[in-house]
């Protein structure tokens, strides 16, 4: 079954809750309403014609400059029985994005969703273990969002070399870039 047939099956089943689609050759996808995603996913997996029993990849993308500014969660599905692929997209507001979890449908979604929460701040309602997965547990903020600013310090450590450090390096001074903390003033005393 190619992408168009799958899309037709979905629209025939869910009607207007499949809000959009783009079936060009690249990577065909259908846009699904946020609250219907759990139902659509279960249908995709259970329906014998589709049999999309494998969630290949769950990725979150941040589009601040698109109109309207939104955040998208893309589910790439694959069927081991029919060997065809299809993608579902969910569009969310950028402030407090929340999507129902698909952990029940595909087990792998558990870790993918934790990563999306960790790096993008997308909350998956109903998730059994919504914790950060990659970053330390006490890290504030979600780094992969486009409007992310690197913090100056993390637990007292320099996150980025300070501008004057770069300046002094270019000016020809040798700076101990070792792990120890950098003392700003220059201890080099001219001989009398």
């Amino acid at each position, binding site marked *: 079954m190619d992408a168009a047939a799958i899309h037709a099956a979905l629209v025939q089943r869910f009607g207007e809750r499949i809000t959009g689609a783009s079936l060009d050759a*690249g*990577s065909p996808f259908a846009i699904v309403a946020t609250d219907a995603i759990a139902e659509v996913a279960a249908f995709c997996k259970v329906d014998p014609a589709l049999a999309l*029993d*494998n*969630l*290949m*990849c769950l*990725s*979150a*993308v*941040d589009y601040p400059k698109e109109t309207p500014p939104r955040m998208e969660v*893309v589910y*790439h599905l694959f069927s*081991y029985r029919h*060997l065809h*692929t299809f*993608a579902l997209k969910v569009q969310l507001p950028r402030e407090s994005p929340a999507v129902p979890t698909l952990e029940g449908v*595909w*087990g*792998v979604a*558990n*870790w993918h969703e934790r990563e999306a929460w960790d*790096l993008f701040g997308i909350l998956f309602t109903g998730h*059994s*273990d*919504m*914790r*950060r*997965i*990659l*970053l*330390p*547990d006490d890290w504030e903020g979600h*780094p*992969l969002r486009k409007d992310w600013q690197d913090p100056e310090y993390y637990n007292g450590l320099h996150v980025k070399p300070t501008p004057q450090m770069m300046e002094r390096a270019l000016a020809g001074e040798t700076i101990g870039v070792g792990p120890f903390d950098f003392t700003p003033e220059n201890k080099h005393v001219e001989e009398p």
Partner: protein
Amino acid sequence: MSAASPTGFVSDWDQDGLDTDEMVVNMGPQHPATHGVLRVELRTDGEVVRAARPHIGYLHRCFEKHCENVDYPGVMPYADRMDYCAAMGNTLGFALTVEKLCGIEVSPYVQTVRVIMAELQRIASHTIAVGTYTMDIGAFTPFLHLIRDREKILDLFEWTCGARLLYNYNWVGGVSHDLPDGFIRATRDFLREFETVTFPELLDLIIHNRIFVRRLSHVGVCSPELAISYDLTGPNLRGSGIARDLRKDFPYSGYESYDFDVCVGTGQYGPKGSCFERNWVRVVEMRESAKILHQALDRLEKTEKADVHEKVPKRVKPPKGEIYFRSEAPRGQLGYYLVSDGNINPYRVKVKSPCFTAMSVFHHLAKGMLIADVIALIGSLDIVLGEIDR
């Protein structure tokens, strides 16, 4: 006393009144058998593991954030460092993704060179996987024999592109260096030595050894449904008996013209999907890669030499759009979801790493195991923490 389990955050893992005889053991980040920086928190009752919770993220180097600030050729060195045991596999995947988005078609000569390099890297990566696995189970000698043979492959790589582990060899539209003359003969020598001495010795010394078999044959059995639902791919999936290989189903870079068979767990010593089967698939896959290499070398002699930098664009600027492309890396299906908005650095790159999903099934299989089996399970999933944490 190593730190008790971290408290103070949403903890559904019911810690209420840890009854006295259970003990929380931290198989800590620097443990000899966790294949990298992985912390597994085991709740054990004596030797039996009641619940296991893996903690990853110690090796997170924000690959996806780097991709957004560096141009397309610059992403290659970062892609190399994701799965540092199979650098060729990563860069090949990313290069093919970008080429498909830009619509670049590479010459057959370069395609064959890429297949040769990918298959050599598959053998090298599997020697590490099988070697460290036997070392986890306690046999140190097979590991050193396999590492000795991996050195020969690394010499071939170093002779071609100058580096031994992280090559930055696959470029968008071509490869960085052409094969030196005499490379084909040297690879043939290596393959002959590998097939006649290394492979039979490995089978005799350890794979069919009764202690090794009994240690693994009924351990960590993963049913096909669980494997598919947790998106196990590559040798982990084929170990459970599902004969799915991307090089056969969705061939890329000329794989459709080589004949090799997909190695599947045969269940010769116990149920399919056990730790032994996953390891067995990797062992036999090495022989399949050798078969492909022979055919690729014959084909290389026939195709006329094309310039490897011919299709490499001056500045890589793919058109606006998105694409998801999967390639068969030694550890499983490595998927790249690339969103580009038309300028020189990618807008968003999401990597689906096979080891990340392989590790997600860990807590399912680890329930009720002995501690020695937990090590066997981690080894059989063949995880590389660089790829899990990206």
